């Protein structure tokens, strides 16, 4: 069953240059218990999509969608208080740079205990004594912190980035969320810690059957972890499908460029030869091109690309391109 179903999500911002469509008709479907990767470079609107799902809105944002459902709840027709309840109970989010999202003036113990909702208490009234503290220790244990008691007594600045991220994950899973949104949880971490966090997320997904929306700019790490992938560019969905479809048989030139740009160990690229790169740079929000937003950078662009392409769907593999790449044979 689809846990998250979004159709034609459009987010507009009011700026001094007028109203800009930063996210244009994005579709996203997630099956219960899967890890979905959302890949895009900076300015692709992937964090905005996450915020729209969570319901964090700022003044001057206009969020519209044809359909936006979390399981059997319609997120569009909720009163603010009901919406808050859904946010509190069913969705959790972890952020980039975890040490800056923890309160620097409080000990970790207080912050975790605050994040544990009372509905998760199980047992008789005589077990109430210090149950939050015990649960905090179990949670830290679950996310793989070896010495929970000393971590609980520390302040965020005393801990490494990797440990802080594990604490954020512990706080997120304290309420047993149905959907966990991870917004670039491993950027600016070194590879050893990065792998630990990815392994932890993978374990959570397998053990608790938590659905994870994994947002990242690095297609390499996402492709490794996720079951299905959605690629975004400048606020438009470019391609989506299962991991195998997107990684091994990309049909959109942008996905292809992302994959080609990674020199990995298996590829037989000549040493110090040029890597495949799209020309130009990511357009700023105020100068978005019309039609297919990849147009000016695309190697296959033609006259038709000034119109927004219709999405083509083949066996669950969706791509938005006027001139899709040919299906390639298995590598």
């Amino acid at each position: 069953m689809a846990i998250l179903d979004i159709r034609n999500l459009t987010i507009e911002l009011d700026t001094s240059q007028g109203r800009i469509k930063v996210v244009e008709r994005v579709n996203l479907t997630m099956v219960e218990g899967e890890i979905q990767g959302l890949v895009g470079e900076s300015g692709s609107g992937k964090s905005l999509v996450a915020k729209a799902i969570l319901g964090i809105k700022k003044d001057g944002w206009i969020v519209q969608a044809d359909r936006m459902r979390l399981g059997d709840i319609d997120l569009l027709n909720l009163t603010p208080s009901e919406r808050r309840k859904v946010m509190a109970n069913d969705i959790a989010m972890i952020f980039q740079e975890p040490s800056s999202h923890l309160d620097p003036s409080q000990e970790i113990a207080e912050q975790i205990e605050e994040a544990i909702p009372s509905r998760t208490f199980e047992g008789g009234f005589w077990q109430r004594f210090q149950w939050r503290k015990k649960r905090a220790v179990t949670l830290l244990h679950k996310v793989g912190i070896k010495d929970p008691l000393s971590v609980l007594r520390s302040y965020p600045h005393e801990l490494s980035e990797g440990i802080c991220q594990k604490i954020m994950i512990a706080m997120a899973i304290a309420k047993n969320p149905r959907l966990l949104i991870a917004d670039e949880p491993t950027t600016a971490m070194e590879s050893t810690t990065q792998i630990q966090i990815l392994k932890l997320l993978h374990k959570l997904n397998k053990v608790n059957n938590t659905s994870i929306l994994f947002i990242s700019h690095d297609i390499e790490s996402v492709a490794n972890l996720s079951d299905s992938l959605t690629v975004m560019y400048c606020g438009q969905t470019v391609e989506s499908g299962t991991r195998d479809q997107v990684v091994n048989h990309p049909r959109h030139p942008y996905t292809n460029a992302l994959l080609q740009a990674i020199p990995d160990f298996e590829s037989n690229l000549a040493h110090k030869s040029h890597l495949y790169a799209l020309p130009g740079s990511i357009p700023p929000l105020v100068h978005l091109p019309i039609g297919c937003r990849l147009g000016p950078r695309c190697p296959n662009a033609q006259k038709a690309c000034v119109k927004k392409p219709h999405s083509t769907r083949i066996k669950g593999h969706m791509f938005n391109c006027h001139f899709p790449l040919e299906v390639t044979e298995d590598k």
Partner: protein
Amino acid sequence: MIVLSVNKLSKSYVQHHGLFSRKHITAFSSVSFELEQGKTLAIIGESGSGKSSLAKALTGVIAPSSGSICIDGVNIANKDHQQRCRQIRMIFQDPSTSLNPRSQVGRILRSPLLLNTELSEQEMDERVSDALRLVGLLPEHAQFYPRMLSGGQKQRVALARALILKPKIIVADEVLATLDVSVRSQIINLILDVQRQQKISFIMVAHNLGIVRHISDNIIVMHEGQIVEAGETAAVLDDPQHTITQRLLMNQQVKFRK
């Protein structure tokens, strides 16, 4: 031809605790390596292994406690900064914070010329526009402020600032980590082109082993301030001998599903 040879370079700090107690902390100790002209040396290692401190010591941001850094056989460890600046330059990790937001790109590029050379105004302008063209920007970009440029363009300006004194060696500390993937390959291509044209040697501190393997000729693996493995990149990464190298490689290629 060997451009840079580093011999038993080490750096240690003294940290004071209270009035009387003090602690000696070693950032790196007896590091020795050589770098040939037009080659790239990669330094990899976990965080806290001293690779960034080593990069800083090479460029003179921090003074080493002992050892020698020789460029073309001349020890520059204690030489004046002007000499050193002209031969070895550094690019920093985050392009958005390494450029002064209040000065135009032209002024940013001119400041190393003003400080280290005695060129006339006109020659400086020529050098600035040459450097901008070399990194794939236009001479008109000299009028721009850093905030008007995108991340990739800022990194190009940072590279131009390093190139403008025509150095022999450029030290790049994690320059590719903060860039977007499609821009990253442009910068890699640019670095490779510049190296080919001008025969500049690069020292790259990096953590993406796929990229390291692609662009570097030699590699140094560091752990707790010591070089644990060194050699040709392909040889080291294909057949790692030390456990640290093996662990770094293992972390790079984790497969969650088969």
